[in-house]
């Protein structure tokens, strides 16, 4: 089997897939930590599904579906952030509407487009083995930008995310950063749809972070640890997907869940051992 894995590295599609897994782990590790810390999982789910509308419209108009999804999801992200800053609209209801509207638009436009309809399954469940060079360049650009942005503005991002009222009272550029960050979250989601698909991308943004959060409560450490967990989970998911011919998105998420379960079990055992040690003393 190890020989097989080494042989696989000779195939461009496989090295591309490995690179995609690495880049997805970095981008989702950073953006996901922000999402989980700020309790924006539901908003992110809304943005993810709304982006399907962009894919459908782009397909209908004959432009690149990823570009369509990017525009559509950034606009819906900014829309949700705008709505949630006004207290008289129920944010969760607005997200629910956008969520289903995006899916409906996507399906309608794909079906009324004459000729060949794309494989919907690859958007819904992802296909990491067909990631192309353009996708990789885009993901690399996003990863570099996210690393620079979160390094350069680390303290300001924490300041605003942790206590928005306090930051606003001290004249920090709260609204600007919220729009910037939600747009980066939207871009992260869209560029990772190729890897794990619309239905599963939210897991890439939450499961590694929740696993990391079992062991550390430090924002920076959660980012680093969830990138590591992302790499381990996505590469093992990728291998399972390749050998058993199962959609890669599903196997990657399954690997994440197994890692989470192992980590949780380990944590419980550690706690029990600690208690026993204290009792015996």
């Amino acid at each position: 089997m190890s020989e097989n894995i080494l042989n696989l590295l000779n195939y461009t599609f496989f090295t591309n897939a490995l690179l995609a897994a690495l880049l997805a782990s970095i981008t989702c590790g950073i953006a996901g930590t922000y999402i989980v810390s700020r309790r924006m999982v539901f908003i992110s789910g809304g943005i993810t599904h709304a982006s399907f509308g962009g894919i459908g419209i782009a397909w209908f108009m004959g432009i690149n579906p990823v570009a369509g999804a990017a525009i559509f999801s950034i606009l819906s992200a900014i829309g949700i952030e705008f709505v949630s800053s006004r207290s008289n609209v129920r944010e969760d209801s607005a997200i629910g509407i956008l969520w289903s509207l995006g899916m409906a638009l996507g399906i309608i436009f794909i079906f009324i487009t004459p000729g060949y309809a794309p494989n919907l399954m690859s958007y819904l469940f992802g296909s990491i083995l067909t990631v192309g060079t353009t996708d990789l360049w885009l993901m690399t650009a996003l990863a570099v930008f996210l690393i620079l942005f979160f390094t350069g503005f680390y303290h300001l991002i924490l300041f605003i995310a942790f206590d928005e009222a306090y930051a606003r009272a001290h004249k920090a550029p709260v609204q600007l950063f919220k729009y910037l960050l939600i747009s980066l979250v939207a871009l992260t989601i869209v560029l990772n749809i190729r890897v794990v698909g619309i239905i599963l991308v939210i897991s890439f943004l939450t499961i590694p972070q929740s696993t990391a959060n079992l062991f550390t409560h430090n924002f920076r450490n959660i980012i680093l640890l969830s990138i590591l967990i992302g790499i381990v989970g996505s590469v093992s998911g990728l291998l399972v997907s390749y050998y058993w011919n199962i959609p890669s998105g599903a196997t990657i998420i399954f690997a994440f869940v197994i890692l989470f379960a192992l980590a949780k079990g380990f944590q419980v055992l550690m706690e029990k051992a600690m208690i026993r040690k204290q009792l015996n003393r």
Partner: protein
Amino acid sequence: MAGIFEMHDVSAGYGSEMVLSNIRFAVDELDFIGVIGPNGGGKTTLVKLILGLIRPMQGNIVFQNPGERNLIGYLPQVSQTDKSFPITVLEVVLSGLMSLKRGFGAYGRNDFHKAREVLALMGIAQLEKKSIGELSGGQMQRVYLARAIVASPRLLILDEPNTFVDNRFEHDLYELLRELNKKMAIVMVSHDVGTITSYVKTIACVNRNLHYHKSNIITQSQLTAYNCPIQLITHGEVPHTVLGEHNHTHHHE
């Protein structure tokens, strides 16, 4: 103008609902104001106005030095903060210095020194690497107070600082505020009138309107005149100057 800010006939609220109407209020340097009033009377709205979190519907607020960056330190209600946010104690305290940073950049060695100094003053220096979710209510209050004063503001605003804290910390807190008051003005919102009046210098009664009482001694009949329906309850051994002498027996009926 000797005050830190003045409010001129300010009305404020949310949507179409007006919570405060025609408020005149000023905070002088080194004043220590206890803000009291019934729930829903507009105490928190007053705080939001001062912090600039909401704008007046009518009237205006004039600050003496509008551009000043370390003007206000603020201790929010504990319930308003996210206890599971992954942030360390030191990072929280450092964020109190953020407004002093040009371009909101990174912290320098001096900032770390200041933050640690304030943590030591609060007696929680050993907690700096803990994340806030691991702290008790009293420890958390100390961390937020450290954040509020680390930049040495001219005005410190405290919103219900005595909720969720044990009696011992409450006592320490008030003693600390007395010390801080030598260097900064303090506005403290509290529902616990009996305790705070022995520490504050003046009292503001807020119930849609605001009545500023230039003394820390206030009687039930004055409260009634101010349309401020709260009971003056005193707590055991805590020294209190709430009631004028002649009212003391009346109060216990």
